[in-house]
């Protein structure tokens, strides 16, 4: 029953060739995170910077192992710097929208 023939090699699943099947969440979140952190830095909006931190965390949690960590780290550092810069420029606490 189990005549071992020359085993075939591992082939990664076809998601690489078919981009429609891939989960786009980490890419969207990465982009969103960068947009929010730029908004937070330029317009000095604290809540933007905080949302950027959240986006970069979500992108990290959903990432595929094939994605390199450099991009993740850069978006993460950008969002942290946005938060820090908005607080250095204006140390007042955030006011809730209500």
């Amino acid at each position, binding site marked *: 029953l189990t005549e071992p023939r*020359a085993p*075939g090699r591992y082939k990664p699943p076809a998601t690489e060739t078919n981009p429609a099947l891939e989960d786009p969440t980490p890419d969207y979140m990465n982009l969103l995170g960068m947009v929010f952190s730029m908004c937070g830095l330029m317009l000095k909006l604290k809540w933007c910077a905080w949302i950027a931190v*959240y986006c970069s965390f*979500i992108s990290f*949690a959903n990432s595929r192992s094939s994605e390199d960590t450099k991009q993740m780290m850069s978006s*993460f550092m950008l969002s942290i710097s946005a938060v*820090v810069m908005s607080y250095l420029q204006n140390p007042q606490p*955030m006011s809730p929208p209500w």
Partner: protein
Amino acid sequence: MKNLYLFIAVLFIPWSFSLAKYDEFEDGDDIMEYDDNDFAEFEDVSEDAVTESPQRVITTEDDEEEATVELEGQDENQEDFDDADTQEGDTESEPYDDEEFEGYEEKPDASHGKNKDPITIVNVPAHLQNSWESYYMEILMVTGLLAYIMNYIIGKNKNNRLAHAWFNTHRELLESNFALVGDDGTNKEATSTGKLNQENEHIYNLWCSGRVCCEGMLIQLKFLKRQDLLNVLARMMRPASDQVQIKVTMNDEDMDTYVFAVGTRKALVRLQKEMQDLSEFCSDKPKSGAKYGLPDSLAVLSEMGEVTEGMMDAKMIHFLTHYADKIDSVQFSDQFSGPKLMQEEGQLTKLPETKKTLLFTFNVPGSGNTSPKDMESLLPLMSMVIYCIDKAKKFRLNREGKQKADKNRARVEENFLKLTHVQRQEAAQSRREEKKRAEKERIMNEEDPEKQRRLEEAALRREQKKLEKKQMKMKQIKVKAM
């Protein structure tokens, strides 16, 4: 590695906070010292002035209560000073006589009297107050982040435990059936790693190979995204379950030509829309499985009735009935090419490549709240998979069935060619035009007029020949038609 980065980054946040807060106080101290020196010259002249001016600076940073009283006192002193100035002229260096300021001693009484006026409390900016309470939004945010990180770690570990529970139960069966269990494609030689290949925090792969009939089997454990808090919250609204997807690639000679699927009705309807082969070969709607002795929850999609008859033997029916709750879909296809590709018009010039495949999708019981025991309960399903592999090898269509199958495949190919006929024609046309243009350019670029003339003549002759050929063909067709 990823965890290490996370922790370092999390430490940054409170550190930067403390930096931002203390900067203000340092600046305040500097200003005070500077003001002290500024007003030092007034020390002899009037003690009140000296004591009150530094206080004026302090009030902005101390409690609100002290602020107003000192301010008002200071204002009145200032007025008195101005009056004195206008009276005497040069005021800064001259010592003041008590006689000159008769109303001066009354000043404290006057200021006390004025205390009865309503006190307006100055609003000290929140960031200068010495309390953390005003930063409650920030604390909320940081708490949210910490909650996310906690959930990430917990979810990742749970998925990991579930994966390994599955693997430990199935390892024996797999190793007895396959020569190579576990290969991540990185080693030069095909050696069995005996481990799951973690693609993601929620997807684990296992490649098994080295068995008769099949080229290989790829098992994907597709867990729910427990590591992402957003996903966890979304699942509270819409429950979903973990899935185990098994894709067996058969050798060409080990499987006959047919397309067949069985599974839950919902899954089959979705697959019929999405999958290239099911949509092309199985035109009917999924039929209820009750006809073949299956529970009502399962339906059957098939190219020909004969295939269903052949597939539904006693053992298969037993498997499907017993584990109906765990089965999402089972698909046997010799024309498997994955889901329909969304392509723009004009790009589709070739049929997608097909492989003989058996595709199984199982739902892990527990609907999200899975435990390692649930993963272990999938073991009989793996036996079913092995049985199906052997069955697919043994099952052969009879002559009629084979003819029908061949006809179907020829029909599909013809349809495809018709669809792309227009595109292929256009492609051929454009190629011919390109050739002509290239020729013309060559002729134009020829500087020697003699050569030009010769090339032109050659081109003309070629065109004439072509025309003649066409005319001959038309004549032949006409003769044949007659």
